[in-house]
Structure formats: C-alpha cells, structure tokens
C-alpha cells in the first residue's frame, strides 16, 4: 500500500484539472443532505430545548369537550403550578360595523403563561390585559383580526354574547404551537377564560378543548410525576403531553420534510454519481499512457488499482469537505429565514450527526461509482491499453470489483432506509430510484441502438448527429441517466403541484359547499333550517349530528398504537368526529357489508370508512369502542364505506346506527350550497340569528391551504432544482469531455467544405435529439410517479398537465443545446490550420 500511496501522491501533483465536475457533483449532493440535516437538527434542538415554553408547561393535560373534576384539579395543584387554557373556535363580530371573522379562541387564566412571556403591542402587563372593565372583557388578537373586522386597538367586538375590547395585538405567543389544530382557520384571539361563561358558547356537545398546563415544583421529577398521575387516575380521559415532545405536529412535519428533502438530496447525489463515474473514466483515459507504462515496468493490477483509488478518494474527500462546509453552515446562513418561517427559535450551530450521515452518503457514492471504471482500466493487459482507448472502459470488471460495486450500492440503499424517519417511504424511494435508473439505462441503450439502426437516414448532418449518439464512448447513456433523473423529479413535482392546485383552486370550489356551519344546537335546528332556506339564492343544505369521540378499544382489547399499522395510528391520537344516521346518506358508497334498515333499533352497529378499517386492522363483524362524552360506546362493524376526503363533504370515519347516540347531547354540522353572489347574505342571516354558530367559509379554508401549499411547493421546487443542477453538472461534464473530439470533427468538416451553419445544424440535431428523447422518457416516468402519488396517496383524480411536461421538455432541450453549443461556436470561428498541422 505504501507504493500505491507513493504513486498516488506523485500523480496528484497534476492538480485537480478534469475533476471539477467530480468535485461539484459530490459537493452538491453532500451539501444538500448536510444542509437539510443540519437545519432539521437546529430546529429540533430548538423544539427540545424550548419544550416547556412551546408546550406552556412541563406537562399538559388535554380534555375534549369536558373539563376535569374538582378532585383532579386539586391533585394537580398539590405539586405544581397549574394554568387552565380553553380553546374554542367561534365567530367574532365587530361592534360598530357588520364585519365578521372566524377566530381561533384561546381563553387563559391568571397563571398564563407558566413559561415564556406573551409579547404584545403596546406592551401591557398580563394582569391588565384581560380584566373586565365595565361591560367589556380585555382581549388581544392577531393584527389580521383587526384588519378583517376593520377595528383598531381600543375597538370592540362580540363573540357569542360576550363583549370584548381589543387592548393590543399579539407579537409573540410563546406556546402558539401547543394545542393548536393542524389547520388554523382564523386569527388568534386571546382573552380571559372567565369570559367564556358570558359568551354562552359552551353548550353540551360544543367543540371546546381544555388544557391544563403544569409547572412542577421540581421540574426534574417529571417522570415520577407522570407515573403518579397515571397511578392516581388510571381511567382519566385526558391525553398527556410533556416538554420532551412539546409539539408532535411540528415534530412530524419536520421529520417528514427532512425525509423528503434528504431523499431529494440523495437523488442529487445519485445523479452526481453518474458524473463521478464519467469523471473517473475521463481521468483514467488521460492516464492511460501512465497506467500502461507502470504495467510494462512491472506494477501489478492491484497496485495500480490502489494508486488510482487513492487519488479518486482524495478528490472525493475534497468534494465531500466542500459539501460539508456548505451544508454545515446552512443553518447559520438561513438563520433569518428560519426565524421568520418557524414558530420557534432554532438553535443555530454545527451538528455532527447530519454531517456524519452526509459524509457516509458521499463516501459510498464516490466508491460505488468509481470502483468499476478503475477496475476496468487496471484489468486490461498492458498492450491493450495502447489501443482502442475508448472501448477499454466498457464491460464488466473482475467479479470482486463488480460485487464490491453492487454491495456499495446496496449499502447506500440500506443507509437511506435505516436513517429515514419513515422506512416505507424511503423504501419506495430506493425502489423507485433503482427502477428509474434501470429505465433510463435501458432508454440510453435504446436511443444508441435506434441511432445506429437509423444509419444513413437523412443527410450528412443527421448522419453525423446519429453517429455521435451511438459511437463508442458516446455520453448518450450518462446524459440520458443524469438529466433524465433530474427531469423526472421535476416532472413529478410539477404534476403533483398542478393536480393539488387544480383540486384546491378549481375542482373543489365547484363541488364544495360554500359554508360549513358548526355548533348548531339541538334546539336551534328547526330555526336554523328555516332561516337559511329562506334566504334568496339558497340551493341546498345538508345537516348531520356531530359528536366527538376517541377510539378506546378494538375487539375488546385496549387500543394501542404499537398494535396497529403505522398508517392507522393517527386515528388513535385524538378525537375524531362521530355521527349517527338512519339511512345511508346521499353520495356515500358501501364497499363491504350492508347498511342497517331505517327502522333498526337493535344493538349498536357502526359503519367505518374502508381506509380507516384497513388502518386499524378491523373488518365486518369486529367491534370498536369509542369514548363519547366520557362514556364507552361499543358497536359492531356492519359495513365499510369508500370515503373521499378530497370532496370537502361532511365525511365521517364513524357512523353509528340510531339509538344510544340519538339522545346524547350533540350539536349539528351543516353544509350549505348557495349562489356565490348570495353567500354573504346567508352568512349575515346566520350571524344575526345564531351568534353561537360558527361559520367556516370554504373559500377561506382553501385560501389557507393554498397558501400553505404554496410555501411547501417552493421548498419542494427548490429541492427538485438541486437534482436538476446535478443533472446539468453531469451533462456539462459529459459535453466537456467530448468537446475536443467535437471541435476536431467540426474542423475536418470545415476543411471538407462544410459551413459553420451546417456544422451547427448537426450539433442542433445531436443535442436536440438527445434532450428531446431524454425529456420524453422523463415525462413518462415522472407522470407515472405523479399519478401514483396523486391517486394512491392523495386519493384525488389525476389529470395530466401538458404545461408541466412541456416545461420539462423545453428545459431539457434548452440545457442540452446550450451546453452543446457552448464553446463549439467560438472554436468554429477560429482558423483550422493549428489543429491540422503535422505536429
């Protein structure tokens, strides 16, 4: 090994010429993975270190629709400070004008906040913020609410029957992420919990959540406190969270985003791997005399392999180091952006774990793609090295090297799967990448074959273009692979985005109701229906009873997340909407079992969404127990329904048969379709007659979702862009490698009488064909991938977007043409003589 190192060291004096693309490919992929990992680590560190602030306490108990008992309250107060926060969603109406807005209400007590501080404009002491003065309670809100209601600080509004005076706007709400539902439909409104009684909003069945935040006298004793809590109240209905996992929603979001971005980074690295292989091959082509000479004077293949592997890995180390530097510093570089985009403070710093992971990916990629060509160059006899300099790198090396390459690729796959937050997604990615690479490999071969078969078709230009596509050593395969993979990501992402966008901005608004009305009380139903149907422009109303419950048992056994499939676990995490019905609601489709008769009065039966049943691992005849308002109700599964969530109808996972639930305290949920021009009149009529009823305007929800998707889309496009840049780098490398030969061909053609226009026409054909065919193959694969995601994962109807695909085609052709033309035009303008002299 000493000799190999010595040879390598001497050879390395030649510098990094020819390794620029190699370095760039590795650096880009490693930087992407390191940056994603480092940013995620800094955000998660912030999440963990500020856990108590974000959660609002060392621990938090959540009750749905029901408060805790006095005994329970007393127990909590024995060893801790306790703060009670009530969350509701309702309608705020400005006093002085007729403007309204849905608000996300957070009603707090005097102890709030236990950790951190509420910052407002103007800065007001907590004690003065929420007190009652005259007939009005003090309140603070997001500036968005003031804008919507057309009021200013000091303005007044009404929620339910309670009157509030806005005393300030919220600058920073330390525990904003805690207790929040995934989707915020309106601006935040904060006031005293004591005012809730005045509002009259809390009725049996109302959607209200009670949070008890705990600040332990001894924060270190959190675990023993939780054990005590469980032992003392084994049957309590609350769910408990603690500061170590303050915001599972954010954590999951970060985990999923990190996974996705890491996989895209990995795509960039895989694409870059093709560039690495090309660069190593070109490097060795330039070293062929040296290798031959070494062999002639007695160097073994093993020695030469070692010497060149060392050189390649020294370069790889440099590329990886550049990538780590960029990726490691990414959190610091993006600190301002993170501060604005996140509801928490990221801990900017250098995180070793993601850097180690990125290094591992980089080293494995460099090895996996360079061993093969190095082994091939070293395998051939010395005499063969002097001839046929292109063909020598083709074919399969000796089996240990081929096996090593396969093992390294497998190691890359295993590392990707094992370090991923979700193994199934990572496995799909690995499988998909392998399939896509195989398809592009085949496409490359087919393009070369087709070019060869086309033979003499057309004139000199086309023939030369076709010959350049299939000649030995042509970069056709690597260009198709590298550009193709990047384009596939682009097409997939563009089509998914286009489909989501169409659903949200076009398809959904056409089919979806104009409004959802929630919290309609039992005794308001008749009046509500009369009011709404009496408004001009009213078209249709659907109404259904609404209760909430959480799954407690499956077939009599306590429902535990670890006993069911991952895709079904979310159903156990909190409360789900529950309803009951006599007849099968219009538009519902039974896929298994039968619906109960209208007059059914027997034991409780339940209808389950088919997806939920599959997720929970239950079927027809099994029993499911749901805790509703503190009471366990067990039903036998009678049928399964195909629920399409994308329709924005009143979709329920659980529908019970009539009987027990009929008489339970419940509210009602209604959807209303109306002439778009008259929608506002319905809202006004409901607001005037039923102040407790919350109106959700579907358009606003779609706007919110659209905004969120827009931001997410930007991140996704950025990530896809990295894969494309990697593809372009490889393409540039491949084109640069063939540049000398291309200039030579062009000069000879010029000597023989070809004009520059004619020669450029040939290039146009060659690169145009290559770009076009690559783009078409990428479009097909990308469309299939997008179709799978849209129809199977999102369960939307897929529609093909020609614009998205056309964009990819244009990008591919433009990039290949630009790179192909670069340099050649200048070379053609120069004198031919220097290239033709007999040196």
């Amino acid at each position, binding site marked *: 090994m000493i000799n190999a190192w010595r040879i390598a060291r001497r050879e390395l004096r030649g510098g990094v010429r020819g390794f620029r693309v190699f370095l760039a490919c590795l650096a880009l992929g490693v930087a992407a993975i390191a940056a994603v990992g480092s940013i995620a680590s800094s955000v998660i560190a912030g999440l963990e270190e500020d856990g108590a602030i974000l959660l609002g306490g060392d621990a938090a108990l959540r009750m749905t629709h029901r408060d805790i008992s006095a005994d329970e309250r007393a127990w909590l107060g024995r060893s801790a400070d306790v703060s009670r926060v009530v969350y509701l969603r309702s309608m705020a109406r400005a006093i002085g004008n007729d403007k309204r807005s849905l608000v996300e209400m957070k009603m707090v007590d005097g102890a709030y906040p236990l950790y951190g501080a509420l910052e407002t404009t103007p800065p007001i002491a907590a004690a003065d913020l929420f007190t009652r003065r005259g007939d009005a309670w003090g309140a603070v809100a997001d500036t968005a609410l003031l804008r919507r209601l057309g009021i200013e600080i000091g303005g007044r509004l009404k929620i339910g029957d309670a009157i509030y005076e806005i005393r300030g706007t919220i600058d920073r709400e330390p525990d904003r992420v805690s207790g929040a539902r995934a989707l915020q439909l309106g601006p935040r409104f904060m006031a005293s919990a004591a005012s809730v009684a005045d509002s009259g909003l809390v009725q049996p069945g109302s959607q209200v959540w009670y949070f008890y935040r705990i600040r332990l006298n001894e924060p270190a004793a959190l675990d023993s406190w939780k054990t005590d809590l469980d032992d003392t109240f084994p049957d309590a209905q609350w769910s408990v969270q603690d500061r170590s996992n303050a915001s599972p929603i954010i954590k999951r979001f970060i985990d999923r985003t990190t996974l996705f971005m890491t996989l895209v980074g990995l795509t960039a690295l895989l694409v870059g791997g093709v560039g690495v292989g090309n660069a190593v091959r070109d490097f060795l082509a330039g070293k062929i005399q040296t290798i031959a000479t070494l062999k002639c004077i007695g160097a073994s293949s093993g020695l030469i392999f070692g010497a060149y592997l060392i050189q390649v890995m020294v370069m790889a180390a440099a590329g990886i180091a550049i990538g780590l530097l960029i990726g490691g510093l990414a959190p610091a570089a993006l600190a301002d952006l993170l501060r604005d985009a996140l509801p928490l403070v990221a801990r900017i710093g250098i995180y070793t774990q993601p850097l180690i992971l990125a290094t591992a990916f980089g080293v494995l990629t460099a090895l996996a793609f360079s061993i093969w060509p190095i082994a091939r160059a070293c395998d051939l006899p010395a005499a063969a090295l002097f001839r*046929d300099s292109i063909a020598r790198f083709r074919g399969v090396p000796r089996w240990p090297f081929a096996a090593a390459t396969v093992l390294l690729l497998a190691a890359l796959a295993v590392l990707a799967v094992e370090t991923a937050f979700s193994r199934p997604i990572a496995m799909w990615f690995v499988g998909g990448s392998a399939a896509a690479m195989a398809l592009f490999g085949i496409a490359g071969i087919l393009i070369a074959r087709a070019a060869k078969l086309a033979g*003499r078709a057309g*004139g*000199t230009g086309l*023939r*030369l273009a076709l*010959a*350049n596509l299939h*000649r030995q050593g042509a970069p056709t395969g690597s260009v198709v692979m590298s550009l193709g993979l990047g384009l596939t990501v682009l097409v997939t992402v563009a089509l998914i985005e286009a489909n989501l966008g169409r659903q949200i901005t076009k398809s959904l608004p056409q089919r979806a109701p104009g409004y959802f009305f929630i919290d309609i009380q039992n005794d308001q139903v008749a009046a509500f229906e009369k009011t709404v149907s009496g408004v001009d422009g009213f078209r249709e109303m659907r109404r259904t009873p609404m209760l909430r419950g959480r799954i407690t048992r499956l077939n009599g056994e306590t429902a535990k997340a670890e006993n069911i499939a991952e895709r079904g676990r979310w159903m156990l995490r909190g409360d789900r909407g529950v309803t009951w019905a006599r007849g099968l609601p219009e538009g519902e489709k039974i896929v298994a079992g039968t619906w109960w008769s209208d007059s059914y009065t027997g034991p409780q039966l339940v209808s389950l969404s088919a997806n939920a049943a599959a997720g929970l691992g239950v079927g027809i005849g099994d029993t499911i127990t749901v805790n509703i308002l503190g009471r366990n109700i067990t039903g036998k599964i009678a049928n399964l329904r195909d629920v399409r969530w994308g329709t924005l109808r009143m979709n329920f996972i659980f529908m019970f048969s009539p009987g027990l639930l009929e008489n339970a305290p419940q509210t009602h949920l209604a959807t209303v379709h109306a002439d778009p021009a008259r929608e506002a009149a319905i809202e006004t009529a409901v607001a005037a007659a039923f102040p407790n009823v919350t109106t959700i305007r579907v358009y606003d929800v779609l706007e919110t979702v659209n905004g969120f998707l827009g931001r997410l889309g930007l991140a996704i496009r950025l990530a896809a862009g990295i894969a494309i840049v990697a593809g372009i780098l490889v393409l540039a490398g491949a084109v640069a490698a063939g540049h000398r*030969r291309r200039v030579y*061909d062009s000069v*000879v*053609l*010029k*000597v*023989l*009488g*070809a*004009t*520059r*226009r*004619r020669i450029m026409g040939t290039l146009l054909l060659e690169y145009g064909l290559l770009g076009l065919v690559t783009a078409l193959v990428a479009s097909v694969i990308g469309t299939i991938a997008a179709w799978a995601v849209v129809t199977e994962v999102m369960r939307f109807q897929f529609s093909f977007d020609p614009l998205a695909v056309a964009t990819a085609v244009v990008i591919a052709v433009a990039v290949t043409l630009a790179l192909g033309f670069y340099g050649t035009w200048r070379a*053609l*303008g120069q*004198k*031919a*003589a220097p290239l*033709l*002299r*007999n040196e």
Partner: protein
Amino acid sequence: MKDDNGIRGPMVLLNDVELKLDSEAGSVNILKGINLEIAAGETVSVVGPSGSGKTSMMMLIGGLERQTSGKVEVAGHDLASLDEDGLARFRRDNIGIVFQNFHLIPTMNAMENVAIPVELAGIDNAFDRARAALGSVGLDQRLTHYPGQLSGGEQQRVALARAIVAQPRLILADEPTGNLDGSTGESVIDLLFSLRADHGATLMLITHNPALAERCGRLIDLQDGLIGADRVTA
C-alpha cells in the same frame, strides 16, 4: 484566357505573400514574401527543411490560414475576399486535401467519410461515388469499417479517396506518406499520381523524400520562408 478547368489565369497565384504567426516567444515570420504561379494541371512538389514554411504555404493555398500581406489567388478566387464560410464553400468546390495524419472522422465508416464532400456539394448518388472512389483505391472490402478498424495505409487511402471523390481542381497533399512504412507509402503515392492523372487535377505535394519530389513535373525548394529554388524536374 480560360484553361481546360474553366479558370482564367493560373491555378495558384501567390504574390509577395507574407505570413507572421504569434507565438509565446513573440511574432514569428514564417513566409517572407513568396511569389509563385502554378498553372492548371501541373504537378508540383514542395521540399525544404522543417520549419521552412511548407505546410504554412499549403494552408494559405487551401484557405486554412490567412496571409499577413500579399495576395493569394486560387482557382480564380481571391481568398482574402472570402469569409470563413466562403472559404469552406471554396474548398468544397475546388480543393481536395490529404494530410499526413489522415484526419478522418472517427465516428463515420470509410464510405461515410468519403461521401461527405460529395454530399456537402449537394451532388446526388454520393454513396455510389464514394463506393467507386474507395474501389479505385482498392478498399472495396472495407466500406463499412471505421477509421479505428483500419491500418495506417488503409486510412490514408480512405483520405485519398475522400480528396478526389468530388473531382477537385487542386489536390494538396502534406507529407501523405509521413506516417506510413516504405512500401505502403509507395503504393499510396502511386495511387495519388494515377488518380490525379485520371481527373487532370493540379497537384501540390509536400514531401521530405527527394525521389518522390522528382516524380512531380516541378520542384520548389523552400528555405526559411523564401523560395530558394524553383525548377522543372528532369
């Protein structure tokens, strides 16, 4: 007066031609005032030591290099008046060149290489003519071979076929046997002369071989950028 080739005046006319090329060491005076006239149908050999300017003079005549001063007129065209594309068209219609290093296009087989000039000239049946040209240089059996699959002699014969296939008025040959062994070189030269005779083309041949130089009707000895001798061979 128009000759048999339809050209007024000489095939090649160099009038006080100078050529200076820039190098890292400064400007180098390659040709220092060449005056030369070659009539259509002549066979002319150019000899002289390395660096005397033989190849440069040929490049000027082929429109592959531009003179610093003086006048270069070939086949009735004042080359200074032509742009790069004009020069390409001029070569297409008038010139066939044979290089020491063959300069075949590696991605094309023998027949395709030979067909290019005919195709570029827009002449029909390019491949029939290429096949015939390759037949005339004895390569009927190598039509679909690529340059990498041919020996040096065979490659030079392909280059020869390519040079004559479009029936040029002027054939320029720059040490065509320089990379070939003795007997292969001789057979290539025999072919060159017989093909030239068949087409009645003018030939300008650069060589280091005195015997080969004597086979031409006229010999020009270039010395340090100037014509040292210009004589009719015996």
